[in-house]
Each structure stands twice: as structure tokens, then as C-alpha cells.
């Protein structure tokens, strides 16, 4: 079934299919008639100038915004009305453009929170902290420590996240998303505001996640170098409309994309 693509990744079937999505806020059209799909195991990038509707697109995918028109099919099932927390239980995790960590909690607790949908004990059991509740807590702690090892942040696990530098916070946020063991990971500008070394680290983590866990990734990124290097296919948005879709090379040579980025000479 699966074929090897040019990056040597084994890309599978379509797992997320967005058809003719339109989203309005009052009279403002954020997204107009956008269709594209995401295949299993691939790294799919969404690019576009500021205000093109990229973050709105992610918010539609994980149920924060509800498009007025269009169909969303995830894992072969058409999605009806849904709440954001339901996206999480279906295996969609994400990070945010402006870091959205829980500032008052430690790195460990933040990442533990990422596993919340998998924890089954009620508050009464937890109040007693005996038997099942304790076992569950420990089992999840082990999983979380795996994530911590993976992201190489062992030394800061007990530090309150508010005290961490920006780059590390971004990494912790990725950790929180990974802790949920998502099948689809949405990354909103994971490398914004980072220096070159931090970007390289982050790229490595993203590729490793994709490679080791087979996680499908949709990411928004402004750094074209990064996008062209790591993604399999790219969607280009401009003013809420799709103006390009294809492999990095296709997109690079697309006249409409070039004019959207560089402006058109009149």
C-alpha cells in the first residue's frame, strides 16, 4: 500500500481530508473554500503570509473553530459538531503559536497533563492515592519520562515552566503534545523566534517524532528553508484561499505563490 516518497518516508493512506472548508467570523472571511488532505506518516506544511488563515486552519482541524461550510473526514469518519477536547481523545495534539504552557506548573506536571485523556481514575481514588490511582500515576510517569528523555530535558523536569528560556518552553510544549501519543500532531510555528541552533534541534525532534513514532505532522512555518527541507507536501494559503498545493518543488515554481510572497510587478 505505502510508497516511498522522495524523503524516504513511507507515506500511507489519507487520514485527514478537508473538503471545501469555509470559516467566517461575523462578516470577516477567514477561510474560503479550502480543500486539501493529509496522508498517514507524512509531514505536511501550511505556509502563507501573515493573516492568510494558517492558524485558523489548525483551529478548524482540532475543533476550536467550527467552519460554516465544508466536510472534515478524519480516519474515514465524517466529523460532526465537536468540542476541542474531543479532538484530543481522537488522537490530535497540537502546539501553539504563542506558547500556551501552564505557567504555574513544573515541566513534569505540564507533560503529565498531556496524558490526561488516558488517565481513568476518579477523584475519589486519587484523593486516597492508593492502589489503582498510584499505579496509574506511576505508569504514566514512566511514559512521560520517555518523552522527557526523547526531548533531552531531564535536567529541568522539576523547574516551573515560567522560568525557562523561550526555546526550552517550545520544547516542553512539544513534549506535552507528544505525551498524548497523538496520531496527528499539529505544530503552529514550532521554530518561530528561535536561533539557528535551536531551529536545528527542533527540526531534528520533528523528524525523529515522525520517524520513530510514525506520527503524522501538520506544521505551519515561516522559515522557507526548513519547510522545503523537511516537508513532504506543502499547502499555500493567501487571504484565506488556497493558492498552491504540492511537493516543495511544485510550490517553489508556482507563479501564484511567488507573486503572493514577493508581490506582483505591475
Amino acid at each position, binding site marked *: 500500500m505505502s510508497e516511498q516518497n522522495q524523503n524516504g518516508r513511507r507515506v500511507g493512506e489519507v487520514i485527514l481530508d478537508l473538503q471545501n472548508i469555509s470559516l467566517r*467570523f461575523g462578516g470577516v472571511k477567514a477561510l474560503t473554500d479550502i480543500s486539501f488532505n493529509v496522508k498517514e506518516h507524512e509531514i505536511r506544511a501550511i505556509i502563507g503570509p501573515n493573516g492568510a488563515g494558517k*492558524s485558523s486552519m489548525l*483551529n478548524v482541524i482540532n475543533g*476550536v473553530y467550527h467552519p460554516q461550510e465544508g466536510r472534515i473526514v478524519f480516519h474515514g469518519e465524517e466529523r460532526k459538531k465537536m468540542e476541542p477536547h474531543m479532538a484530543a481523545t481522537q488522537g490530535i495534539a497540537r502546539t*501553539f*503559536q504563542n506558547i*500556551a504552557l501552564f505557567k504555574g506548573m513544573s515541566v513534569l506536571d505540564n507533560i503529565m497533563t498531556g496524558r490526561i485523556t488516558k488517565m481513568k481514575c476518579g477523584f475519589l481514588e486519587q484523593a486516597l492515592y492508593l492502589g489503582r490511582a498510584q499505579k496509574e500515576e506511576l505508569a504514566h510517569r514512566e511514559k512521560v519520562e520517555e518523552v522527557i528523555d526523547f526531548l533531552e530535558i531531564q535536567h529541568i523536569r522539576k523547574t516551573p515552566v515560567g522560568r525557562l528560556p523561550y526555546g526550552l518552553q517550545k520544547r516542553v510544549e512539544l513534549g506535552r503534545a507528544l505525551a498524548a501519543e497523538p496520531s496527528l500532531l499539529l505544530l503552529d510555528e514550532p521554530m518561530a523566534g528561535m536561533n539557528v541552533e535551536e531551529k536545528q534541534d527542533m527540526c531534528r525532534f520533528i523528524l525523529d517524532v515522525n520517524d520513530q513514532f510514525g506520527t503524522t505532522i501538520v506544521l505551519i512555518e515561516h522559515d522557507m528553508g526548513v519547510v522545503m527541507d523537511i516537508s513532504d507536501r506543502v499547502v499555500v494559503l493567501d487571504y484565506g484561499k488556497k493558492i498552491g498545493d504540492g511537493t516543495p518543488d511544485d510550490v517553489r515554481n508556482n507563479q501564484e505563490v511567488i507573486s503572493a510572497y514577493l508581490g506582483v510587478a505591475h
Partner: protein
Amino acid sequence: MQFFFEVLIGGLLSGVMYSFVALGFVMIYKASGVFNFAQGAMVFFAALTFVGFQEMGAPFWLALILAFGAMVLLGIATERIVLRPLVNQPHITLFMATIGLTFFVEGLAQGIWGSTVRGLDLGIQDEPIEWIMDKAGILVSSFDLFAAGVAAALVTLLALFFQYTRVGRALRAVADDHQAALSIGIPLQNIWRIVWAVAGFVALVAGLLWGARNGVQFALTFTALKALPVLILGGFTSVPGAIVGGLIIGSTEKLAEVYLGGYVGGGIDSWFPYVMALAFLLIRPEGLFGEKHIDRV
């Protein structure tokens, strides 16, 4: 039907009193984003200070000026000691700080002037106006009407101040966007001081009217709490909202007490405004005139 109108008008006019307190809230909230729980305590402080100076033998105008001076000092001190160190803290922290301020100001007022209940005489009769009595057969107190007149004058004055003076313009800029206002050189702290002084003035006017009506006593601070549901109804940032909200709360609470109170043992005006505000919140969280706030991810 006449009785209904009497209750309604009585309620509307007592609502004007709530509006006074709410006005002070709105101004401070607009200019600094601080939800000033202490506005009620400031009303109490102002009234007590005025009466205190009068008891020391000061004539009306002097006592008024001295009390206003005290309010300005209180406002400046609050800005300097409480607000400035808490700049950029979460709103809820500032809110709790103003609860602390409430206790402090109440203690201070009574510490200086004593805790006894005092009368306050503005020389206005609290009697029904005969002319209206004859024409419509409805009892309307001249004092209430006077209070309504003062409210109208005060709101006009404030509107002119905000609309046409330099300070007013700067203030509106600050209310819109602190950072932007700072970046074009508006001295934020001066503005805050002025706002607190103006809020102090509004508190003084409210204190005088309240005091003349019900005597100057600690219970004033509880009545002033009813400005909170008024704000929820009117929206935290709207001056007309404060007025309309006050009128709605004042009239519904009186009507509810008269027409519903009898069935449940009375005294429902102690909670009716809050429950009404609560019900209203569920339908329209941003208030009648407030701006809708959208969370962005």
C-alpha cells in the same frame, strides 16, 4: 396602577444612587483595567470626611473642598502605593488588592472620624412634591428628584470632560490601549492619578446624597456593593451602561420587593440584584453596552 408607578419611580430614583457608585467603577476600569472593589468604601470615606469636617465647624463649601482634597490625596496615595507596584499583574490580583484597600479605607475612615452613625443635611426636603401629587396622584420625593438632577449634571460634566479636554482625550487613548498610549508619550501614571481623583469626586457626590438619605454609617458600604450587579448589567466600560444599569437594578429590586417579596417573607432586595445580574450574565456576558471580547489562540 398609581401605586405601581410610585414604586417604579421610587426605584428608578434610588437606582440613580447605584449609578453614582458604578460611575466611579467604570472610570477607573476604563483607564486602568482595575476593577475597583473599594469604590463603595471610598463613598463611605468621602461622606464621613465631609460630615467630620462639618462637625469641626467648617461651613458647607469648605467641608466640601476639604473632603474633595482628602479624596484626591487618597486617590494619589492609592495609585502610588497600591497600583504602581502591581502594574502588569493579573487583573484578579489587582482586584484582590482593591478588596484589601476596601478594608483599609473603611478602617481608616472610622479610625479618624469614629464609628457613630451621623446625619447629613444638604438642606433639601425629602418630601413628596405637591405639584406632582396634585396632577398625577403619585408620590415623588423632591430629594430623589434633586439626586436625579445631580446625576444628570454630573454625567454631562464627565462627558464634556472626557470629550473636550486634553486630559480627557489622553484618558480615552489610555482606555483603548495602554501600550500605544504610552508609546506616544501620554504619562500613564498622571492619567491614573487624575482618574482616581475624579473617581474620588464622584464618590464624594455619591456619599453626600447617600448620606443625606440614609445617614452616614457603615451599612453604606453594603449598599454600595449593589453597584456590582449594576456594572454587570451595564458593562464595565460604559458610562451610559452604568446609568441605565443603575436604573434597571433600582427599579426591578423595588418592584420585586413589593410584588414578590410578600410571598417569600420579604427582604429579597438583599439578593435580587445579584441574582438578576447572574441571570443576565448567562445571556449576555459582556453587558448591555460592553464590548464583546473574543479569545484568540
